[in-house]
């Protein structure tokens, strides 16, 4: 007879000392866990609910400007700082962590329309409707000790006066040039009081300019003649131009896929383009109900934030047709500028009500340092939600967003208008000779022509 029975000594299965961790033994046998799928589903449902409970995206407002915030700039070299310019000519540097003004840059006589910081974060360039470009030294010492917030002001390093009012400015990545937009596109060197060169194509105002993060010599602008134009600094004239049905307010390049950019359009949509292939948008991002005023990509390149004239901020996936998230408050007015923070976890929006607002990029994210166990739990919950997101109950909870009534109504109205237009098109097509009416997808429909 050979016999053995299970025999466990307590010493082997419990901790030796009270300071030790409890010993954990695993057995992954499915028979020990009856109804594991049901349990998993309930967990997914609970984590979706918890997500809604913890969705508190608004962190705080930064109050100080006397007029609407017109433009913002990130400091690529300093995570906590953000520059903002307002319509009364005031430029401020904010400390995001304490949400206070670090210093003011006084000097502009009209609205500040463009702000940008150099890649090393030492020089701030601003331009405005007073036809001046001003260069400022960014006070690094005060950044470090931002606690003593005596509103110390800074004198400009240089003031360059030029012929026309400026609408936008952007600094080259890894280089000494910056570009301003106004009546024409001017390329400036930091040390020269006059632009080193100018580009002109057509007679309309250029309203936004953005350098390519991958190829330093490439830049894109949008103009009030509804155009998006691509420039190459190595060539004498602009390279390509795309004319759409409505004006593009702002452009942002995808930092991870630098051949792609997204344009914030006046017709409530954003259009993602491949710069090599402008005859068709890669994706149309719909959801806003009024003109999109500004757009900024997350440093991860997976999502971007838009601010709109409809008083909301939305976050889109780079490949998603509809927004992932909508942020709004009762007091936030028309949003003129938005920025993703350099660590991709915060958003900053500047609006007509003179405030900058700080938001979380993920509405229910837990802030602060996470313990490994907490992190693991969050990852587990995320995976569960992802697995069961197609089931009706989970989907309903995950998709639900509270909308302000005007936006809800406007969205419904837009939907009926679009439906009516589509129906009309269908009928027109059905009642005309076959082949006489050609339909285009929305990705092509809003493009009038492409000029080389």
């Amino acid at each position, binding site marked *: *007879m*050979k*016999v*053995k*029975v*299970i*025999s*466990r*000594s*307590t010493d*082997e*299965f*419990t901790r030796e000392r009270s300071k030790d961790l*409890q*010993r*954990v*033994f*695993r*057995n*992954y*046998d*499915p*028979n*020990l*866990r*009856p*109804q594991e*799928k*049901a*349990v*998993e*589903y*309930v*967990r997914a449902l*609970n984590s979706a609910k918890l997500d809604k409970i913890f969705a508190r995206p608004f962190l705080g407002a930064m109050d100080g400007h006397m007029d609407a915030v017109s433009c913002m700039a990130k400091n690529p070299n300093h995570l906590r700082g953000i520059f903002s310019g307002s319509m009364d000519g005031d430029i401020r540097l904010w400390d995001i962590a304490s949400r206070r003004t670090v210093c003011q840059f006084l000097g502009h006589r009209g609205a500040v329309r463009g702000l940008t910081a150099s890649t090393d974060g030492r020089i701030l360039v601003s331009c405005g409707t007073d036809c001046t470009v001003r260069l400022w030294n960014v006070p690094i010492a005060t950044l470090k000790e931002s606690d003593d917030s005596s509103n110390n002001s800074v004198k400009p390093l240089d003031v360059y006066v030029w012929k026309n009012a400026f609408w936008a400015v952007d600094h080259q990545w890894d280089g000494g040039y910056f570009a301003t937009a106004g009546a024409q596109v001017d390329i400036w060197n930091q040390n020269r009081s006059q632009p080193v060169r100018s580009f002109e194509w057509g007679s309309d105002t250029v309203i936004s300019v953005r350098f390519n993060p991958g190829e330093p010599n490439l830049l894109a602008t949008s103009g009030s003649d509804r155009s998006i134009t691509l420039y190459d600094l190595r060539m004498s004239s602009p390279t390509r131009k795309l004319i759409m049905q409505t004006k593009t307010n702002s452009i942002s390049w995808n930092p991870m896929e630098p051949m792609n950019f997204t344009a914030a359009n006046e017709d409530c949509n954003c259009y993602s383009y491949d710069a090599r292939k402008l005859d068709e948008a890669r994706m149309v991002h719909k959801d806003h109900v009024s003109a999109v005023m500004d757009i900024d990509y997350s440093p991860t390149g997976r999502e971007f934030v838009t601010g709109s004239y409809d008083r909301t901020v939305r976050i889109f996936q780079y490949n998603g047709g509809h927004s992932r998230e909508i942020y709004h408050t009762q007091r936030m007015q028309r949003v003129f500028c938005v920025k993703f923070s350099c660590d991709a976890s915060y958003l900053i929006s500047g609006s007509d009500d003179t405030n900058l607002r700080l938001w979380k990029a993920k509405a229910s994210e837990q802030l602060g340092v996470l313990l490994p166990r907490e992190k693991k739990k969050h990852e587990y919950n995320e995976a569960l939600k992802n697995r*069961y997101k*197609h*089931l009706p109950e989970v989907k309903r909870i995950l998709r639900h967003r509270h909308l302000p009534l005007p936006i809800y109504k406007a969205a419904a109205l837009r939907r009926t208008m679009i439906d009516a237009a589509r129906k009309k098109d269908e009928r027109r097509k059905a009642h005309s000779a076959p082949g006489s009416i050609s339909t285009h997808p929305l990705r092509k429909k809003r493009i009038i022509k492409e000029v080389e």
Partner: protein
Amino acid sequence: MDVPPIDKEISEELDLRINKYLRGGAVNLKGLEDKKLRGQLAHRENLFGKSAKAAAKYEKWLMPSEGGYLEADGPVEKTWRIKQEDIGRAVDISSARNQHDVILPEFGPYTMDFTSSGQHMAVAGRKGHLAVVDVKNLAVRKEFQVRETVRDVVFLHHQLFFAAAQKKYTYIYRPEGVEVHCLKEHGAVLRLQYLKNHFLLASINNYGQLHYEDVSMGAMVNNIRTGLGRTDVMRVNPYNGVVALGHSGGTVTMWKPTSSAPLVKMLCHHGPVSALAFHPSGHLMATAGKDKKIKLWDLRKFEVLQTFPGHAKTLDFSQKGLLACGTSSFVQILSDLSESRNYSKYMAHSMVKGYQINNVLFRPYEDVLGIGHSMGWSSILIPGSGEPNFDSWVANPFETNKQRGEKEVHLLLDKLPPETIMLDPSKIGTVKPARKREKPTKKEREAEMEATLEDVKSNITLKKKTKGRNKPSKRAKKKEVIVSKAKRSLLEQMHEEPLSRKKQKISEEVALPKSLQRFAHKKAPT
């Protein structure tokens, strides 16, 4: 490439183990047209495969203990002739302590229940003796006398609550002997079962009413009148939470709290069903009847797998799939060696003559069988019955108070709604398959009609008639007539809908002569 034979052996063994953790086959990606979805699914399948392999490797290399066994030397010695005393002498002292008899002749017969970790046991004597025993340390936590009939006892989610079915009502007690609740709605309960994942207490009372009570909320979930008479044979299928009842007519019915009709009604015996048990994998059921038969059923096909002769007052499956049958003073253990689902005699144990066995129950995570009988309770060693490796997060025999508290919170967070009880729980979390389209849509029908019309038009051949009769206008008219005829017939076809069954019947009736219409329902003699 040459693989060393040892590696090959290991990989083959791992493949066998991986199957256990894969939980079904992979999705067939061949037929999918959606490239994006195909990519996502392929990625997910890859992950599943990896995790199954990791689990298999863990099982192979890292499990701390191995299961028990009992093997005979040579073909002459039989395992079922081996006595408990011999086993007790062969095993270590701490295991030998699990062989004991507790003789309490006044209050029997006894019934018992174990907690899910096998750490505690609740015993109830029919004449009112209730006790909670810490079986790991062999210490009585508390015993008390309720001075009325106790028919059944069951632990709730942990050892700090247990429910006892007493003469008139069911009560919930703390182990200190404090009565926490009196469940009056259940009536005089004969048998209790607890569904751990759902926090449901199921009971069958002497009027044959099945009650489900949510013990976390204290709310009655459903009260089902079975209408099949009084029975005290009830077990929960651990795999899906379905409650099975054995009736005096020989039927076994399966119930869920959200429907008042049984999910399954199967005739198992020609005579009353006396006992019932489920395999932990949920696909195997054992029933015993007064017709002197013990049957094993495959619950996926509802077919008998095996039939054994013999009575059984009580049945129980162990975690490893051993089946214990108890009658009068005799316990028999059947096992499927090599997991072939072919049960055969494995062990046997006789108690002192005159003891009437009331209840047998395997202790989880131990090689121990608890027996409640008319003179107290006993515990014997059944090597190879228990799961040797426990999972600390599922059921921990060495649980501390703090861990227990934490687990209670997690259990409550993961509490399943009663709707998740169904025969096939793997259906949860799947989407309804798209219905097969039977009728063509209007558009398709129109397109088809147009195509046939075109066909007719192009195939018109007119005879060449003599001069004067062959005018172009006449030919055109003739063509038109042909096309319109074809069109009409098509339209008629389209509008002709298949009659509903009732209408068909009526039309049949009408078709008969009036004198014969009254015979229309009856089948024609063949």
